[in-house]
């Protein structure tokens, strides 16, 4: 005769503690907003054409003409970073969207049906977990050629199991809840309950977790470009810029490599702070 009625004492003890300083969160939001805005408005904001070569200055230090200096081909680094933000953000965004859709559907299927479907899908996820996502991406590049989209598809497949596993466990727990039994007794069909009622109840948690993937994917895609397997020259891309500038680092030319690296770090950290705050807020609310 357990009654799970929260008594007043328990509710008081569960009351949220002092809200953590929101400063960090809002800083992250502002940083990400600035990066996103800059990338979308690149044609208007960038002081120069990212591919324009200034023959008068190779590896120039910062100056009024080139705020962050130029690279070894005499291209304006600031403009390339602003333009590079486009590929840097669109790739992870696509990966997060695709992997979330694939992962939620497979996770829902496995968690709702249980039995052999669950067992089979879980083993498939295990196999995918065994491969580092970078390796899958490199295989995809070998199969489909270099560029933005082959790694994006590969990463979507590599990240889908993370989403699927979380969805599966949430759905499996949700499936045993009395409200699902209540729907069954009322005569609703299994597919309707799963898609129309259970799915919306787990989506916020899964979605918040997926935003955390954004940062990792951004870093990994930049890594692929750095290895020369992602976006190809001359398109501006942060990873590729670091790659092109790395020979200069030994020679003391730090800025061409450091500037895009800072851009990567800033966006990854900002996205992770936002993602963590989101999953805290949603997780703390007790979904069901």
């Amino acid at each position, binding site marked *: 005769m357990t009654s799970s009625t929260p008594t007043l004492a328990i509710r008081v003890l569960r*009351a949220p*503690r002092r809200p953590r300083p929101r400063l960090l969160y809002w800083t992250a939001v502002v940083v990400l907003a600035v990066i996103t805005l800059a990338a979308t408005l690149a044609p208007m904001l960038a002081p120069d054409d990212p591919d324009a070569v200034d023959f008068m200055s190779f590896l120039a230090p910062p100056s009024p003409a080139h705020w962050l200096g130029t690279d070894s081909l005499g291209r304006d680094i600031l403009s390339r970073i602003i333009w590079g933000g486009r590929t840097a953000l669109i790739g992870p965004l696509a990966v997060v969207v695709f992997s979330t859709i694939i992962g939620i559907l497979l996770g829902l299927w496995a968690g709702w049906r249980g039995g052999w479907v669950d067992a089979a899908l879980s083993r498939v996820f295990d196999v995918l977990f065994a491969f580092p996502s970078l390796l899958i991406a490199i295989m995809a590049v070998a199969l489909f050629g270099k560029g933005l989209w082959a790694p994006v598809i590969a990463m979507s497949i590599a990240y889908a199991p993370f989403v699927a596993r979380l969805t599966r466990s949430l759905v499996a727990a949700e499936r045993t809840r009395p409200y699902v039994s209540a729907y069954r007794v*009322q005569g609703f069909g299994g597919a309707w309950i799963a898609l129309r009622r259970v799915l919306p109840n787990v989506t916020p948690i899964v979605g918040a977790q997926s935003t955390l993937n954004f940062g990792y994917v951004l870093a990994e895609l930049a890594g692929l470009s750095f290895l020369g397997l992602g976006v190809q020259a001359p398109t501006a891309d942060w990873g590729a810029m670091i790659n092109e500038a790395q020979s200069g680092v030994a020679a003391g030319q730090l800025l061409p490599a450091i500037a895009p690296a800072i851009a990567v770090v800033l966006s990854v950290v900002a996205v992770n702070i936002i993602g963590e705050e989101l999953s805290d807020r949603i997780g703390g609310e007790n979904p069901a």
Partner: protein
Amino acid sequence: MNLLEIRDLTLDLPTGIRLLHGITLQVAPGETVGLVGESGSGKSVTARSVLGLLPDRAVVGGTVAVNGRSPLADAAGRQQIRRHEAAMVFQDPRAGINPMRTIGDHVTEALRLCEDWPAARARAKAVELLTAVRLPAPREHLDQHPHELSGGMLQRVMIAGALSASPKLLVCDEPTTALDVTTQSEIVQVLRELCANNGMGMLFITHDLNLAGSLCDRLVVMKDGAVVEEGPALRVLREPEAEYTRRLVAATPRITGPAAGSDDRSAAATEASASEPELVVSGAGKTYRRRGRTPVVAVASASLTIPRGGALAVVGESGSGKSTLARMIVGLEEADAGEIMVGGVDVSRASRSRAERLARAKRVQMVFQDPYLSLDPRIPAGRAVEDVLRLHTGLSGPAARSRAIELIQAVGLGEEHFAARPRTLSGGQRQRVAIARALAIGPELLVMDEATSALDVSVQAQVLDLVAGIRREQGLTLLFISHDLAVVRRVCEETIVMRRGEIVEAGPTEQLLRDPQHAYTRLLIDSVPAPA
């Protein structure tokens, strides 16, 4: 000097909400004081303050003194009280014990760490304590882990642990609420003996007036963070002075004396007995088989009949199979054996098609135990009812909406609750929504599985009245699953008693209560606490 002296205790949360409005109460040495009230009355917060367990950054006013020492002043005093003066027993024993440590570790912890007793001496004392709480095999239990013991046994371990430091005051916060009624009566007996033998004072928090009356010398009734009445237990229960206490006493179902609502019941019963059977269960059984384990017989060959418009109660303790029986009838479990006929149609097999599923839902509906879990957290009350109407009646748009509002109003809620999410509703309101949702389909048979056991007594009384009214108006047939004989007596004219999957006794409720035939029924009836 009093053992516990609480004077004008106020407690404010940092959000500005005042939980306690000047509580004053005393416990004399050797005295048992019951602190009763409904959820949200502040009884637990008051009790916890005795050991200095307060919400974060709460602002406290007034004084609390345990044997002259204040638990609120400084950490040293608080520790002194927790070690030597007072101990606490909580509601859920399984939540309060470390599952990785043995029972012996738990019971001897305070002795070894606070009193620096050597292990052997602490162990001997632990055996003594476990014997005192009447555990069957104290020596063996010392090396067992919590998962090997039942809830009732664990609660005894918790009591033994609380007593290890020989406290002068024992604070019990609903220590038997999560337990079966027979286990409850054993635990209460243990507490009663311990207090008498050790001259210990006890502050006993409960929502159950009958239990408080049977155990306590004095009662303190709380409501909304204030004391509304206090006095000798029997006086408070027999001649309550405060209006609130009077309502509370009236709402509390009893197994003796005149039963509330018995007129409704007998009127419905005479009509019902003449008509044909609505639910016939014959030889239904369910066995859970798991690989590598002995099969568990949840229900063994159960047979029962309810005439159309009748009300039958199924009574039993946890594990008696009463819920499995209910789940088979509504189709959440498939019966292994036997037949279940509702309105003349066999429903013992799972529905294969959409049409079958809908037809079955139209015949049987169910109200679940926990209104906090049986409503979809995302779906507002009105929409939950509308969904059902759309599926079953073909109503849509404004027609469905106005019908849903009618149904919501019929269960005593207002139009303003239509758009309310379950989270913003109280337990009673949620259960009303669940009832409205079940009635929207217009079922012939309504199964209520412990549908009022999570509710406060006054809310429970309202919900039971609501169900009685619906039965009268619509001729609904009712199957009422409960562990509480007193509630059953209010609602149902017929009762069956289940134990370990078997029906041990069946008959008219009053006759069964007055003259129980089976030993187990007698034990159940004797275990129900009654003010002496």
